[in-house]
């Protein structure tokens, strides 16, 4: 038997196992990137994008629950714009959003300034207490407000009467004017913490040197606020206002529980009307059309938000 010279390689590259090869393939940035984002994309495609498109489709149908609908073009939108109740809802939504957001901005800034300038001891407590309305379920706290506005046993009216401010309190939920005030108060109550705490964070981030400089230049508190605080607060304010506008406009809970849109539709907003027409009365197509009126506003808000965020980033 002759010995055959076997040429041994100096260094053996081990054959990579299938496991390692698969792993290395999956670990590439562009592969892993897609893999990790798939769940989010599937979720949002199936349960956000698809329902949205389905909503657009529904709004173009004269569909009523239990009956197949047929294509109706823009009939739903046209019908809505010709109806008193919808025009009333448009008006209510506008009043509700503008007043509530306006009040939240002004009072939120005020509250943030108070906490920022004045509260040192007990700041943690104040901040926590102020935030409470924002975190508890709105439906449940609205129940408490309902009870406080109750026509006969209202504690607010009891107080008004016993302080001698009036002989009888307003009929909070039964009078169209006061019903509007009521839903706005509750919205303000719930949304104020978000404004105050966010604006407070904005205030904290303003460098103290700027205030010192203003003081040296002889600026009083009002001028300091106008020329130092406000300009530096603008980006935060813009984002908070945009954010709140869309969610106030789309609000459902407060109006639904407090007034159900009444009295005589004086407090209906998009969400409650859509619920009543689309789901309670079963005119799905028209209900979908009502919610779609929110869409243009949403687009505007999104575009502006992206603009402000970009500006912050660069």
């Amino acid at each position: 038997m002759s010995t055959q010279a076997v040429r041994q390689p100096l260094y053996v590259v081990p054959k990579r196992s299938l496991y390692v090869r698969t792993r290395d393939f999956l670990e590439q940035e562009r592969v892993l990137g897609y893999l990790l984002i798939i769940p989010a994309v599937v979720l949002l495609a199936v349960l956000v994008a698809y329902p949205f498109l389905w909503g657009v489709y529904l709004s173009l149908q004269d569909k009523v629950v239990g009956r197949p609908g047929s294509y109706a073009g823009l009939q739903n939108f046209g019908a809505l714009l010709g109806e008193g109740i919808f025009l009333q809802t448009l008006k209510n939504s506008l009043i509700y959003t503008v007043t509530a957001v306006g009040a939240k901005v002004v009072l939120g800034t005020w509250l943030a300034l108070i906490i920022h300038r004045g509260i040192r001891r007990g700041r943690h407590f104040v901040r926590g207490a102020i935030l409470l309305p924002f975190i508890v379920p709105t439906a449940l706290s609205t129940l408490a407000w309902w009870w406080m506005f109750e026509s006969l046993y209202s504690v607010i009216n009891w107080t008004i009467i016993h302080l001698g401010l009036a002989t009888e309190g307003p009929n909070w939920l039964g009078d169209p004017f006061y019903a509007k005030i009521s839903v706005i108060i509750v919205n303000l109550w719930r949304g104020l913490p978000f404004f105050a705490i966010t604006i407070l964070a904005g205030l904290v981030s303003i460098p103290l040197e700027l205030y010192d400089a203003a003081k040296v230049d002889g600026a009083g508190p009002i001028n300091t606020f106008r020329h130092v605080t406000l300009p530096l607060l603008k980006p935060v304010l813009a984002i908070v206002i945009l954010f709140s506008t869309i969610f106030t406009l789309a609000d459902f809970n407060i109006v639904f529980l407090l007034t159900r849109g009444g009295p005589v539709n004086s407090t209906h907003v998009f969400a409650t009307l859509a619920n009543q027409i689309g789901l309670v009365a079963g005119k799905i197509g028209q209900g979908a059309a009502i919610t779609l009126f929110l869409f243009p506003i949403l687009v505007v808000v999104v575009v502006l938000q992206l603009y402000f965020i970009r500006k912050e980033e660069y």
Partner: protein
Amino acid sequence: MKDSTYYKTQRFAGRFVAIYIPCVIFLVFALFPFYWMLITSMKADTEIYNLDTTPYFWGKAGPVLSHYVQLFAHSEFPLWMVNSLTVAAVTTAISLTIGVMAGYSLSRLRFFGAKAFGMGIFITYLVPPTLLFIPLSQVINRIGVTDSLWALFLSYPTFLAPFCTWLLMGYFKTIPKELEECAMIDGCTRVQALLRIVLPLAIPGIVCAGLFSFTLSWGEFLYALTFILDTEQKTLPVGVTSDLIRGDVYYWGGLMAAALLGSVPIALLYSFFLDYFVSGLTAGAIK
């Protein structure tokens, strides 16, 4: 000397008017509804509906627990509470998982379309449930999960996951990339580096996103109201507001007891994690 005390008093008076009085008014405004829930829930019915006595306190009978007993013994309240806890826990877990994955991917990995996906997720974060609830109710129906908690397991992540993703994206960006790279040089795979290096460092962000998801889920109303009609499957806010109100007679004592009990878990949760909450709240708005 005299002057300095004079100015001190004046300054204190100024602070009193400018700071303390408005602050107390704001606090009363924020907290009174909760106080009112507590007081009403512990009054006997005869006291609740008695206009002659001062309503702010308990009457002679003292605090009464009958409304709470009634709630637990003779209503579906305990069941709703369990449902709400289940829904909040499950949807938070789902959303956090999705959020960590997507947030890491979008903030750390370079691949084609990452920017567009990021923007898509930001947009869905701004979509209010009101825009979708009518068509979504039909989609849920077609999937066949109407009237079960599964309707909520599926629908809540649609607004929770974008939020978690957005918040965690910001958080991941603050963790230095070098840490991961070191781990990978030492032989970790990228996924191991994510699990062992990045995630432990991101715990504050994850806790924050989790708390927010839990809170939003616990308080959600519109989807729960629309997708679930079966009393036994209802969540707490819907159960309390629809099934505890019977006819024209409102049982305010019981309702306030339920409202308070539904608010307590969240208030407790956040009293422990206030700073996480605040940082998340402001990050969500400022970032």
